């Protein structure tokens, strides 16, 4: 019960602070809580007393301030500012705003462009692309069926290689797993 009431006090104190900062009146349920809770009432009273106390004490500390610092600062100030406004003259136009975002974007675009160019020109195309010599052999074939066979032959070669790979893989799997079906199986 005690913990619950403390939790509510924390919330109510926050509400009091919020009301103080925003200049809005406190809500009715906070007001109702204030009438019952000593701790929150004391907090609200503290909040009201702070402003005049701070203002009064600020005057006290500022009065004691030594103005030798002001003289020192004034001595360091040049006759004219760096941007050089003439007395009574026009103020220079505002400096253009730099946009540092553009620099990395430009760098990224250039990198992408460089990679694209290197892919297109530097790296050679597929070595298996038919050369002029190979094409001449192709066209020197006797009949269209021969041409088709020659054209299809790389595909066939690939098919054979795949078949061979599949067979060797299946053999390897059978030998490694060693499972048998039928009366010989243990």
């Amino acid at each position, binding site marked *: 019960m005690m913990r619950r009431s403390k939790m509510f006090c924390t919330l109510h104190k926050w509400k*009091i602070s919020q009301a103080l900062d925003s200049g809005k009146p406190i809500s009715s349920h906070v007001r109702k809580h*204030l*009438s019952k809770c000593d701790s929150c009432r004391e907090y609200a009273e503290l909040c*009201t007393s702070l402003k005049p106390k701070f203002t009064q004490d600020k005057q006290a500390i500022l009065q004691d301030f030594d103005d030798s610092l002001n003289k020192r600062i004034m001595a360091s100030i040049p006759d004219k500012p760096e941007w050089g406004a003439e007395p009574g003259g026009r103020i220079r136009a505002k400096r253009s705003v730099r946009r540092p975002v553009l620099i990395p974007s430009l760098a990224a675009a250039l990198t992408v462009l460089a990679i694209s160019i290197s892919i297109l020109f530097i790296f050679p195309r597929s070595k298996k692309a038919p050369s002029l010599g190979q094409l001449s052999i192709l066209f020197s074939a006797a009949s269209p069926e021969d041409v088709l066979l020659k054209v299809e032959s790389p595909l066939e070669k690939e098919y054979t290689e795949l078949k061979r790979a599949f067979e060797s893989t299946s053999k390897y799997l059978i030998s490694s797993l060693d499972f048998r079906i039928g009366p010989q199986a243990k």
Partner: protein
Amino acid sequence: MDNTRAVNHISDEELASKVAAGSRSSFEELITRYSSRLYYFLRYRFKTDQDTEDLIQETFLKAFHNIDRFSSEHKFSTWLYTIAIRLTISRFRSEKKRSGPLDPSSSPLDPQDIVIQKQESQNIWQMASKLGKRQYEALWLHYGEDMPIKDMAKILNKKPITVRVLLHRARQNLGKRMDQPLATRKLAGTTSAAHKFSFL
């Protein structure tokens, strides 16, 4: 004399405009208005008074050179405090130092300083300085400069809600540090007490 009196009634923003037009005396007036305030705002950030004064000097110099960039639509105090706090941060970054101890009791003090500290112990700002630099600065800007939360957030480079939380914690901690124990205070009556807080 009349001239001085006339200058006293001019707002900070008007003075800044005059400085931009070349009036050095207007800048002198701004220095008079703000040097002490900046000093008490920054004093717990630095180990020595000399460091604080150097930073204030640097702040005014920067403000003078950049006065053409100040827009009179904004408050001069917010602009100046922002310069000061940014210079402070950049100084600590460049020197790679940690800020000085906030609690004066934790640093070695001369006997003379101890006497001064005892004399000042009744001052609420002295008490506030022991809360931590963030809470102290929030209190200074809010109560000392009467700044709205929005401007404070800009200066302290924080979100408005963070500034509200800072202020709330500062008030609570200050209440705990008050010499007069609040818990022992009795109010006359609950109804009248509720009326007391009608400002809220």
